[in-house]
């Protein structure tokens, strides 16, 4: 009965939600601004109007009707960006085929996921809601803004962000398809074959469409021209070859990284970000030469064999070899303290403050193709801000306020006891859930293990 009542109510709520993302205006006064691209500016003001940074300077007077936030003694930095996350998603892996370029994580957004709020409480304003790593060519992924409070899934989308897609190499696709289903890929050789088969098919598909387009322009042939069967899967691959989609590839070992660089070269794909890429340090010169970027863990290793020969100095080696590098979370836990994860590069490789903070701001912005909008404190960029007590690279750093498009989405002084936007009426109140740590990348992919466990 309760369900019957709640559903139409929810529906009404959704209907009244704004189509345009909410923006706000504010003056952040007298903070220590860590701009990332233009040094550290002490006792400086930052004015946001209608969701955009319009002025940075000293002694800015408050325009009428605009709220002032006193940041005296606090650090003001651009909102943190996570280039690899699965929060805010109700599905992660379409683990039904080694190639699933036709699916979108943007169709499975969950704005009610409390992980979004927890990420905000760690200063994170944007995350890349990636498809999982079960398939060699996985689904297209969504770049989301952490507009906690909205309930319409599409309201999370960062509309200006370019399209991205997930690829995956190594143990995960070979485990799911080779070991799980007894099909290709069962080896890293097979993974390469999957990519080459898929791109070869896409080349033929593109050619067929080009021929058809030529036919319909020709008066004689127009009448008899038959269009090729449309395939969203192959069209997506064509779009990758045409440079319209950024590739984000789950990878660990040096050999498989080089393999993919070879495939991409052969098919003219120029934009690629390697994810995890624990052995990226071994092929840093090759990554730099290609212009490939890297999004790594600060120190995760040894949880599976392909990450046994890792080093926490990975980010530092990549940076010193001129590879654009970011630090990501891939975890609803790590995303809460990416500033601390970035700080670990000072222990492992002595990165400067600016270099370390670039790993979670401007560099992931470059990797998501959104660096003209976010990732640094600059006039004209989005009003995405994290305000810290203590320096963000200190273990004693505490995020105080997190602002998205000029709207305060997390405020430590107004942090409610219960932040949930939706409460399952059937859930027993006093029922805790034991956390099981897992590689989120593989969520929903372990069908075979599930079936075996059922037996």
């Amino acid at each position, binding site marked *: 009965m309760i369900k019957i009542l709640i559903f139409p109510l929810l529906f009404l709520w959704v209907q009244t939600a704004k189509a345009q993302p909410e923006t706000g205006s504010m003056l952040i006064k007298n903070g220590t601004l860590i701009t990332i691209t233009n040094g550290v500016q002490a006792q400086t003001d930052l004015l946001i109007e209608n969701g955009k940074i319009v002025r940075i300077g000293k002694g800015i007077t408050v325009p009428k009707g605009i709220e002032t936030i006193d940041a005296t003694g606090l650090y003001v930095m651009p909102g943190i960006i996570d280039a690899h996350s699965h929060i805010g998603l109700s599905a992660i892996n379409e683990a039904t085929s080694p190639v699933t370029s036709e699916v979108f994580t943007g169709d499975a957004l969950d704005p009610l996921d*409390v*992980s979004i*709020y*927890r990420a905000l*409480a760690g200063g994170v304003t944007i995350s890349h809601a990636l498809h999982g790593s079960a398939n060699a060519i996985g689904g297209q992924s969504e770049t989301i803004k952490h507009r906690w409070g909205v309930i319409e899934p599409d309201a999370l989308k960062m509309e200006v962000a370019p399209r991205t897609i997930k690829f995956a190499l190594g143990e995960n696709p070979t485990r799911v398809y080779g070991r799980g289903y007894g099909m290709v890929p069962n080896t890293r050789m097979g993974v390469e074959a999957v990519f080459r088969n898929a791109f070869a098919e896409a080349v033929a598909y593109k050619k067929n469409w080009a021929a058809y387009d030529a036919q319909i322009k020709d008066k004689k042939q127009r009448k008899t021209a038959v269009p090729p069967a449309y395939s969203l899967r192959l069209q997506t691959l064509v779009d990758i070859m045409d440079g319209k989609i950024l590739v984000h590839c789950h990878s660990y070992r040096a050999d498989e990284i080089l393999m993919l660089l070879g495939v991409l070269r052969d098919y003219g794909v120029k934009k690629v970000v390697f994810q995890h890429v624990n052995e990226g*340090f*071994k092929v*840093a*010169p*090759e990554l730099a*030469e290609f212009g490939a970027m890297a999004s790594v863990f600060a*120190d*995760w*290793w*040894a*949880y*599976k*064999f392909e990450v*046994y*020969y*890792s*080093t*926490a*100095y990975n980010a*530092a*080696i990549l940076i*010193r070899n001129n590879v654009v590098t970011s630090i990501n979370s891939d975890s*609803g*836990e790590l995303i*809460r*303290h990416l500033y*601390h994860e970035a*700080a*670990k590069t*000072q*222990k*492992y*490789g002595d990165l400067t403050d600016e270099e370390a903070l670039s790993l979670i701001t401007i560099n992931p912005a470059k990797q998501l193709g959104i660096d003209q909008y976010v990732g640094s404190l600059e006039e004209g960029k989005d009003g995405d801000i994290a305000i810290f007590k*203590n320096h963000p*690279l*200190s*273990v*004693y*750093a*505490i995020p105080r306020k997190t602002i998205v498009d000029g709207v305060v989405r997390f405020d430590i002084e107004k*942090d409610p*006891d*219960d*932040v*949930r936007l939706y409460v399952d009426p059937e859930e*027993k109140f*006093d*029922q*805790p*859930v*034991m*956390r*099981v740590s*897992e590689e989120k990348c593989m969520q929903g992919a372990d069908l075979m293990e599930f079936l075996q466990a059922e037996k």
Partner: protein
Amino acid sequence: MKLKFSLLIILFLASLPTLKAQQIQKTRTGTFALTNATIETITNGTVAQGTLVIANGKIAALGTNVTIPDSAEVIDCTGLTLYPGMIDAGTRIGLSEVGSVEETTDYNEVGDVNPQVEALTAVNPNSVLIPVTRVSGVTTALTLPTGGLFPGKAALLNLHGYTPRQMYAGFVGVVLNWPSAAKRGYGDKRSPEAIKKEYEKEKERLNSVWEKALTYAKIDSAYARDAENQPEYYPEMMALSPVVSGKAPLLLEVNMASEILDALTWIKEKNLKKVVLTGVMEGWRVADKIKAAGVSVITGPVLQTPTRDYDRYDKPYANAGLLAQAGIPVAIRTLETENARNLPYHAGFAAAYGMGKEEALKAITIVSAQILGVADALGSLETGKQATLFAATGDPFETSTDIRYVFINGWLIPMDSRQIRLYDEFLEREPGLSNE
């Protein structure tokens, strides 16, 4: 002649880096004097410009007025601070090498009543993970078996030695996993009623095992007077016997508020004195009850998400501090394997979210040592204690701090690990780019 000699020296010097790279760095012991150091004793304040003398594996002297023995190797610690080695009171170090490869994991035996199996037996002293951990100043770790009701005996290890015996740091404890009344993750579709039913059933099982062990203990003490006849070999009960009779410690892993309360009632019923609560993620909900029961707590990981969606985001960070404020002795653990090196950061987050730096430092040194019954040897810098310590450029909770020297049981540990070697090899890879 002179020229030739200089040339020889130059050649020798030029060959040094290669020689160094080929050298295998070994640990070494002897008499050491660490001079001009700030000494953070933990139990007895901070000594400025002090000297600490290590001899025969122990701290022979420390202070500002210390005579340096003639035989001592002097290490100038100007600008450095000495701390006792950090103790991680809950890990799987030595029992797991590569998480997902079962052939390399030895922490989970078949069956749910295995109190007789010994973690120490299966510890791999040559695990690649060990040097990675200890160069970060984490010198000592409790390694835990897991799975089932009684997964086995945990052991405290010094992270140096070539046999488990050499590593053994003086504590062994039977682990009890308290039955769980929580969902096993979001995929768990059991109804609250079904969960409760299973929980009650599991508690009954625990009690029946416990009763059996009590009976065994009685029979065993009767047999003790009769050397000719001995009871049948029953290793499970032999292992539990000293625990049920209160002679040996019990590490009771329990996390949810309602389970903690049940466990406290149970501890009282069984009149257990040598019991330590571990995990205790929801301890903050029932801190006053834990305090009243007079038990100690090993909590962590601190870097963990809240147990319930409706809990405040910072509760896992704050838990250790809230327990300490209630007057409970609290140690912090990581429950990590390959990343137990992050122990200072777990403590650092606890410090930042209410526990304070001093208490958090104690929670990974002296309090851990006290809870594990090894405070006579570990956990602080005091004359007569084991020389297990490290020298840092500053606050060990900060990532900008470097660890310069590590001593374990008087052995000077080389600041070397596979992760460091990979850095040295690949920072400027040779050959770099090749066109072949």
